[in-house]
């Protein structure tokens, strides 16, 4: 359900990001991770960012989540340019843009218990008192489909799907406006993918969330997104509704992705919530 | 070639840094050699001041260091107050003895560790391995001091071996055969102390390295080709384990050097160790610095040789550097 007439929740304008590999006594070489990327995401919608590995998707995600600073360009969010904020201001913005990583095994500290993981952001932000934090933690766990008995188990003992639920619960604890899912389903098996996708769609409507869904799988993007942007070598090369991209792709990169997609997915596309 | 130059530069940097460090520590010391004299009321304070000036102990630290570096470059390592002689000849004689002992100990230790480690790895988990491992473990828990003192005690009570010195007093008058015998007798116990202390850890590491290699697919393939056991072990497995073993070699040199200090002092071998201890007890500044740096030099050179051996032995390092 995209609404083009509404103000975009987040707007990226000509963002670029360079990395320089430095070694002592030798000049480094420059890596262009992002090269003038522009896009916008409407509130309460899902934008899918699709591209091959190395196209810059994860770098963009990190920039949006204020975990990396773009070399140039602006990112408009909540009325200001979050690319130009200092560290302290960034800390205030970060809770609103949450990132879900691809590998739940490394994004959750395996020694922490489920409750500790879910309440860590709350503890860091010092929003409530101890007991209230615990209660909120239990509520979050339940919301993502994990029972209260699991609260004291260590994260390392959970399955992949359960871990991602935990990661989502953690992200939700700070009541973010936008969730960036960086290949969040890629490491899961098919049935877990389906279940988590359903959970995500359900959460989107209950919490009025906006999703930026990053993936290399066009089929998955088509299934869940209102709009798809294709990235290639640090640039957005094509953008539009899934049906249009699948039926008549314009750019070379999009065409590559389409031909890699199984025929059946294209003909029976189900639109989300 | 660039690799060699880089390692040489690295070694030079280490020596330079070590010299600064040692000089710094030495100069932070409250008091010096002449403090003892100050307590003696018969010696006038002016004399002490004059002596201090003569040995330039009253100059600021950086100046002393630069002067010292300058003299080192010209081959002069300073002056020993207690021996009343230049430091260099004192050090060189003792260094020769230490070098002799440590080199022989290194060769012996490796000469024993390699076959023992290989045998252990070959029969992993079975009787020969258990026997060797347990013996090594038993040796490992005996502290070096206890071992050296124990051997000394044995020498003193049994009178089979001399206790101390490198050669007997009448060495120069002995026939060549007897000279050799004399040297060997004097050397046996210190060697034993050094070897027995260094052996356990080394055998352990060799065993681990060879055991790792023996599990590799190429070894299984070689066995499948019917290559005889001896060739397998020494011409296939050992060279493949060269990388960790050569690094270990560099490390073992350092360990043996540190160990030799104690053994020399306890068993009376006239090497750098006892000289250093004496110099320390009498606060003989330049002798101490010279001794510490000389032993550091041994260590750095030993590691350098190990690095070069590694470079020569492991073709992967060649390839790595070429690719860069």
């Amino acid at each position, binding site marked *: 359900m995209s609404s083009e007439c509404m103000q975009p929740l987040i707007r990226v304008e000509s963002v670029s990001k360079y990395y320089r590999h430095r070694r002592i006594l030798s000049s480094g070489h420059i890596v262009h991770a992002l090269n003038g990327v522009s896009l916008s995401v409407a509130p309460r919608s899902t934008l899918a960012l699709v591209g091959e590995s190395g196209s810059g998707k994860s770098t963009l995600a990190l920039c949006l989540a204020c975990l990396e600073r773009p070399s140039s360009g602006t990112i408009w969010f909540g009325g200001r340019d979050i690319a130009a904020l200092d560290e302290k201001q960034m800390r205030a913005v970060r809770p609103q843009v949450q990132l879900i990583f691809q590998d739940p095994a490394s994004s959750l500290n395996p020694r922490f218990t489920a409750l500790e993981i879910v309440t860590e952001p709350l503890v860091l932000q010092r929003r409530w008192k101890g007991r209230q934090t615990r209660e909120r933690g239990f509520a979050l766990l339940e919301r993502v489909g994990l029972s209260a008995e699991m609260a004291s188990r260590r994260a390392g003992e959970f399955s992949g799907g359960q871990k991602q639920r935990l990661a989502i619960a953690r992200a939700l604890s700070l009541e973010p406006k936008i969730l960036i899912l960086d290949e969040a389903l890629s490491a899961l098996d098919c049935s877990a993918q389906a279940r988590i996708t359903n959970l995500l769609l359900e959460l989107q409507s209950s919490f009025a969330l906006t999703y930026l869904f990053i993936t290399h799988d066009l089929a998955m993007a088509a299934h869940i997104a209102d709009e798809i942007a294709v990235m290639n070598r640090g640039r957005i090369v094509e953008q539009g509704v899934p049906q249009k991209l699948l039926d008549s792709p314009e750019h070379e990169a999009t065409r590559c992705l389409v031909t890699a997609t199984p025929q059946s997915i294209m003909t029976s596309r189900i639109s989300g919530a | 070639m660039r690799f060699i130059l880089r390692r040489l530069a690295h070694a030079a*940097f280490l020596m330079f840094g070590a010299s600064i460090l040692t000089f710094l520590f*030495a100069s932070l010391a409250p008091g010096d050699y002449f403090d003892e004299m100050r307590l003696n009321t018969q010696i006038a304070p002016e004399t002490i001041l004059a002596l201090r000036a003569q040995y330039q102990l009253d100059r600021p630290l950086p100046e002393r260091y630069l002067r010292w570096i300058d003299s080192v470059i010209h081959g002069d390592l300073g002056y020993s107050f207690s021996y009343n002689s230049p430091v260099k000849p004192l050090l060189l004689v003792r260094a020769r003895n230490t070098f002799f002992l440590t080199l022989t100990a290194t060769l012996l230790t490796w000469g024993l560790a390699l076959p023992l480690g290989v045998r252990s790895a070959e029969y992993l988990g079975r009787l020969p391995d258990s026997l060797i491992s347990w013996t090594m473990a038993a040796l490992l828990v*005996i*502290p070096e*001091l206890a071992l050296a003192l124990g051997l000394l005690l044995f020498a003193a009570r049994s009178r089979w071996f001399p206790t101390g010195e490198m050669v007997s007093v009448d060495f120069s008058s002995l026939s060549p055969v007897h000279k050799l015998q004399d040297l060997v007798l004097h050397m046996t116990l210190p060697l034993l102390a050094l070897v027995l202390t260094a052996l356990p850890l080394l055998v352990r590491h060799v065993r681990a390295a060879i055991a790792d290699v023996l599990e590799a697919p190429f070894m299984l393939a070689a066995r499948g080709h019917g290559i005889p056991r001896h060739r397998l072990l020494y011409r296939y497995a050992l060279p493949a384990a060269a990388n960790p073993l050569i690094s270990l070699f560099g490390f073992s040199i350092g360990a043996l050097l540190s160990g030799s200090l104690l053994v020399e002092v306890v068993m009376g071998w006239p090497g750098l160790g006892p000289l250093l201890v004496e110099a320390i007890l009498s606060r003989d500044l330049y002798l101490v610095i010279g001794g510490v740096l000389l032993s*550091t030099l041994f260590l750095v050179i030993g590691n350098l040789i190990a690095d070069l051996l590694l470079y020569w032995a492991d073709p992967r390092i060649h390839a790595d550097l070429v690719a860069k």
Partner: protein
Amino acid sequence: MNERRQLAKWLIVLGVLHGVIACAGFFAPYDPLEQDREHPYAPPMKLHLTDTQGHFHLRPFFYPFRMREGSLDQYDEDMSRATPLIFFADRSAYRLLGLVPCRLHLFGTGGERVFLVGTDGFGRDQLSRILYGGQVSLLAGLLGAGITLLFGWGIGAAAGYYGGWRDEVLMRLSELFLALPWLYLLLGLRAFLPLAVSPLEAFLLIVIVIGLVGWARPARLIRGVVLSVKERDFVRAARGFGAPDGYLLLRHVLPETSSVLLTQAAILVPQYVLAEMTLSFLGLGVPQPLASWGNLLANLQQYSVLVSYWWMYLPAVAMVPFFLGYFGLSSALQEWATPHK
């Protein structure tokens, strides 16, 4: 689970050993500084259960030594004065664990003195001195290891976490310290500190010197762990929740380094006890009359002592069960931290 049990076993063994030394006052029959000028260099006494008439006594007894006429260190047993041991005797005062005043000893004697491990030149009971000496040596090892690990952790964590030029500088410095032969560095450092100081000062001095010399290897190991943890996503995520550096280090990084710290501790403590023994043996450590395993052995540097009084060697053996315990502990720790494939 088996690893846990192994670990527990070695911890218990070490605990008992350390406990005995910690309660040296209880296990030692005499004060370690107490001299007995009538019995210099007395050999170890035998305990008997049957007397000269062939009667069996439940309580062990001994024959006190009398110095032989005309000799300075030969003794005969005085068979006429069979003296029994008194268990749980109330004898000289001491402070248990340095705090609680106590008078209870495991065993003691009446007027005559029993020397189970012989005496030294001043007639001081060696058993008591070995027990009390253990306190000094073990404490030096434990404190020194603590200092090294504190230092090494701080430097390694800073280098690994902050990276950049700080990392380069610290790593070059660590290479330097590793390049110097350890024992030579130790001696060199000790040399340039005041030599004639009080026993307490000497003790503190050598603890600090031993602790400072060995920071390089633990620092590098810790740095390795920190580098790998730093890149983990959960650290990134926590930063995304607004976590400051201090929180990240304490809550996420430090627990990962705990296994390295423990294994290093088990390796370093015996090494450092040995370092103290070496320093004291060479006269650079804890001075007499305070006892430490090192300076007890220093007597052996005199040839006459070495040849004639073999029991003066026994303090060297006292270290062996501790070495064994720490060795077993470090093996068990390594098994526990990195399970076999």
